[in-house]
């Protein structure tokens, strides 16, 4: 009985390794690993663009009320 579990564990480990290799291949084929500098910008969007800090302590760093009054 015992060897069966070792065998299963071993096969599962092989599958995991294989999946890792497959993921790496997929990434390369998809071009995920090329043009890296631009890809690092993919976290910025129109709503939260690059070049602008997007988190402050509440009420600091320019408050919405002030901007309303200015308007």
């Amino acid at each position: 009985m015992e060897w069966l579990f070792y065998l299963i564990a071993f096969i599962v480990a092989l599958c995991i390794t294989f999946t890792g290799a497959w993921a790496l291949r997929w990434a390369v084929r998809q071009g995920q690993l090329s043009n890296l500098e631009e890809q690092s910008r993919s976290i910025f969007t129109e709503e939260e663009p690059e070049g602008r800090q997007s988190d402050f302590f509440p009420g600091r760093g320019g408050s919405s009320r002030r901007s309303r009054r200015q308007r």
Partner: protein
Amino acid sequence: MNDDPKNPPPGPEDNDPRLEQGAVSDEGIQKIHAQLLREKEEPTEGFAPIPIFMLFLFSGVIFFAGVYIAQYSGGWDPLNYDERVGVAAVTDAPAAVDPLVLGRRLYTQQCVACHGANGQGVAGVFPPLVGTSWVVGAEERLIRVLLHGLVGEIEVLGNTYNANMPAFGPNGARWNDQQIAAVATFIRQEWGNDAPAIDPETVAEVRSATAGRTSAWTNDELEPYAN
């Protein structure tokens, strides 16, 4: 990038007054964003080089790892648990145990709590071990006390004690002959005591002679073995 055709045209929910501001300034942001992108974008195909010091560091780490595994592989022997040894077959019989070292360890683990670090005991409760006939006297009585414990009134160096001494043999801590012998030898030769060592064979004899005993000894029972 920004004028992604997939982007939905502003839907009805964008009339939300809270969002209006955002929507108005969206264009402005996009303009700035486009500028930023234009400035920065220098498509670097392929891999940016790793800083040189990192290459050195990584080579160093990999080199170290290689040396380490070669050094401490233990001959890749599944039965070898000692990384310093090349091959398991070389290891011979375990080194002989010094009874005094083992005895001291056992004593500090199990006896100090009652008999004290210097074997002085606690006045009126736990008898001392220094210079008492129980310790430096007859071997058999001492072994019996350690194997099965001691209860009832006893006299040690002129004072009487009446409490329980736990068993360390089969009914108690289940020590083997070597351990009993070691602790007995230790208390017989420490703190100025100077009696001959007790060896495991003697303990084994007493153990078999008292086999089946389940309760602690009393003073009277041990009287015959006092000398």
